Structures are given as C-alpha cells and as structure tokens.
C-alpha cells in the first residue's frame, strides 16, 4: 500500500511542472513560482502596478502610488505580489471592493499592470499592458489604460533609457 502511495505521489510530482508550465503560458503565472523548477529560466519578475479611480463622465484619476494610505498600501501590496506570482489567477475583488467602499464617489476601479519581458524570438524586451477593471454596478466594460500611466516611473517603450523602478519582489527566490 505504501509503495502504491509513493508511486502516485511521484507521478504527481513528475507531472506538476508540466501543469505549472501550462499555467505560465495560459495565465501568465510567474515561471519562478509554484515549484515548477523553472527558476533561472527567465529573468525575475518585472511588473509594475497602478491604481486608477473611474468616475462616469470624468477623467480617470491615477492614484499617487507613492503615498497610498496605509490600509490601501497593504491591500495593494498583497494584490501586487499575488498578481506577479499568479498572473490572471489572482483575484482583484478584495482590493477593488475595499477601494469602492472607501470612495463612494468612484464608479469603478482599474488596476493596470505592465510587464516587461524578454522575448525569446527577438531576444529583445517587450511590454505587455493588461488592465483589470471592476465597476460598482457590476458591468463588464474594461477601461483600456494608456501606457503613459507608467511613463513617470515605469517602462519607456521605444526609448533606450529611462528612470524606472518596477515593483520589487517581496523576497528572493
């Protein structure tokens, strides 16, 4: 019996990295995470998050990420690490619900995240911008964040240099 259990365990152990790789490809999970043994197969995570307040009929308002209130900072940090590690598997609901409860004048909240990755074909860096949008009334519209949101302290598409500080990982691998 113990031998059978050990065999099943080893089968799962052997198959897991294949599943983890699928999660990386399909859901943008960080290859370094979830024990898929893909550490040092790609550069470390280079992702930057912004928080944008949405009001119907008004310009979206970028929250100053340098001075989030402590309670927001804690939630944003949690979401950021989860989003970096789990990609599309990370839920924004808790952060969005808290922000909307704190700001009754907001109609929605957008959480754009920009990823700088190394493209295997061109061997050059490229930018991917994906935005998660949560509306108070539950509508499914996605607000398309402009890349300029990240220009101040983020990636600079098409330029050879620029002051940047992507969100850092909470710990080393």
């Amino acid at each position: 019996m113990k031998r059978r259990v050990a065999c099943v365990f080893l089968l799962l152990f052997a198959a897991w990295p294949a599943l983890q790789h699928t999660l990386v490809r399909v859901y943008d999970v960080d290859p370094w995470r979830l024990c898929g043994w893909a550490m040092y197969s790609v550069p470390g995570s280079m992702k930057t998050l912004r928080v944008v307040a949405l009001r119907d009929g008004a310009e979206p308002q970028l929250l100053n990420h340098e001075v989030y209130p402590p309670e927001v900072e804690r939630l944003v940090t949690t979401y950021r690490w989860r989003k970096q590690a789990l990609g599309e598997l990370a839920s924004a609901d808790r952060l969005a619900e808290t922000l909307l409860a704190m700001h009754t004048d907001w109609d929605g909240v957008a959480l754009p995240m920009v990823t700088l990755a190394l493209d295997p074909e061109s061997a050059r860096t490229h930018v991917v911008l994906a935005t998660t949008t949560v509306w108070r009334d539950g509508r499914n519209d996605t607000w398309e964040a402009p890349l300029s949101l990240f220009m101040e302290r983020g990636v600079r598409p098409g330029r050879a240099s620029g002051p940047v500080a992507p969100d850092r990982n909470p710990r080393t691998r």
Partner: protein
Amino acid sequence: MLDWTAGPPGESPEVGLRALRVLVLAHWATQLWAWAIQPLTLSSDLPRSVYAAAAVLFTASCVMAFTERGRQACLFALPIAFAACAHVFPVLPNHTGLAFLVLALFAWLDVRGEDGQLLSRTLRWMTVLVFIWAGLQKALNGLYFQGEFLAWMVAHGPALWGHVFGWTLPAEELARLQTLSRFASGAGPYRAASLPFVLVANAVWIGEVLLGLGMLWRPTRLWAVLGALVLVCAIQLAPREWMFALLFVPLLLLFLPGVWLRRLLPLFLAIDAILLAVLAGAPGAAVFLKASGRL
C-alpha cells in the same frame, strides 16, 4: 520504475536517511530563523516573534532528530511547516516547497527496514525529477538556446554574473550588453556572437537533463551524481542560492553510501549557522548572501 533508483544489493540507506532527516529539519529551522532576523515584506507579514517561536520549535525538532525519535520530530514539525508554506504562498521559494515535501515523507516513513528502502527510492526519484525538470523548463522557456537569459543576467544581474561569465564574451559584446537599458521596451538583442558563451548557456540545461537521466542508470550514477554536485556548487558562484544548495546537495549525496552524508552533516550544519550569523550582521555577506541581501 520506483526501483530504478534502488541502491546496490544489500545497501542499507538508514545512515544516510538519518543524516538527511536532521538536515531537512535544520534547513527549515534556518529558513524560519532567517525570516525572524530579516522579516518578509509581505503585507500580511507576522511579527518576528512568531517566526522566532516557529524557529525554536524546529531547532528543537532538529535536536530531537539525532535521537530515536526522529520521525516523531518530523510529525511534530510538519504542521508548522505547512502553516509557513501557506502563509508565504504564492511567493513560496521553490526550495522551501521541496523541503516541505521531503519533511512530509520523513514524517510518513521510517528510515529503517522496508520503509527506509521506499523512502530512499522516493527521495532519489524526486532529486532526479527536479534536476531533469530544471533543465527542461529552461529549454521550454526558450531563453537558453542562444544565451539570452545569460546575456540578460550578465547585463543586468548582480555584478558577480559578469565576473563569472564575462570571460566567455568578447570585451565589446560585454560592454554592449552592459549598456543596454534594463527597463526600455525594445532593448536588445540579448544575444552574443560568442561560441563559448552559447556553449556555456546550453551546457547548463542539457547538463541538468543528462545528469538527471544518468542518475537512473546504475553504471553512470556515480559520475552523474558527481557531475550534478559540481554543477550545483558551480551555480553558487553567481546566484548564491545557498538555501537551495543546502537542501539539494544532501539529496544528491543520498545516492552515495550513507556514510558520506553522516560525515558531512557537521559541515552542512555549520554552513546553516554561518548563513544565519551573516544574515544577522557577521562578515561574509559577499559570499553567503544574494545581491538582495537575503538568503
């Protein structure tokens, strides 16, 4: 297939397993002490005292593992390890996940008799699979065939990467890579027209796959294990993944006669203590800590 990792006829893995059990508990204690000394920056992070209390319990378990109550020590420590993994998820370090599974196996199976044989074979299979998958993942992610990942690390990684691998590149290529902007879209290409550079990059992933496979065949096992030990130790030159090495080297040594693990046990425990001392402020950060200042 489980028996593919069996040792020579008449081999008793008990001595090696006893030493490995101590080392796994020591690995966990070191990790928890490290988090107590240098707290994580997780938003939901716990007070240092919680990590310190868990570290004390693991240290006690480690001491207990020197006695005949080693399995009970693992059973006692397992829920704490699970709670630590759950707390750190999803940024759980891979070596910590591996250490949890190894600890769980030690809690489940005794190191003596048939249990010991099954435990030894299972742990050896895990070692082989981690090695093979580490190589395959590098190939699957496609950044090793022309040295792209290595070029990136030489350009933007800690200076040690440039020192260790810089010799494989012509000076002008090294200079070009190191002037590329890390955060500019379209920067690159992160490739270098240098045969030694491309060979080194590909040798890493091919070596991991072949050495892992070599451990499964008894005639090549010794050389594969020695090659893997050299590779794991060589990897420490640049990334300084001491915690990974402190778990993985003993797992590789499990393929050799158990007396090796028993003899080297004091050395591994000493390195654990040195890592913690350095993390607490003792000299040696350049050798024992990553560029981030963490273990």
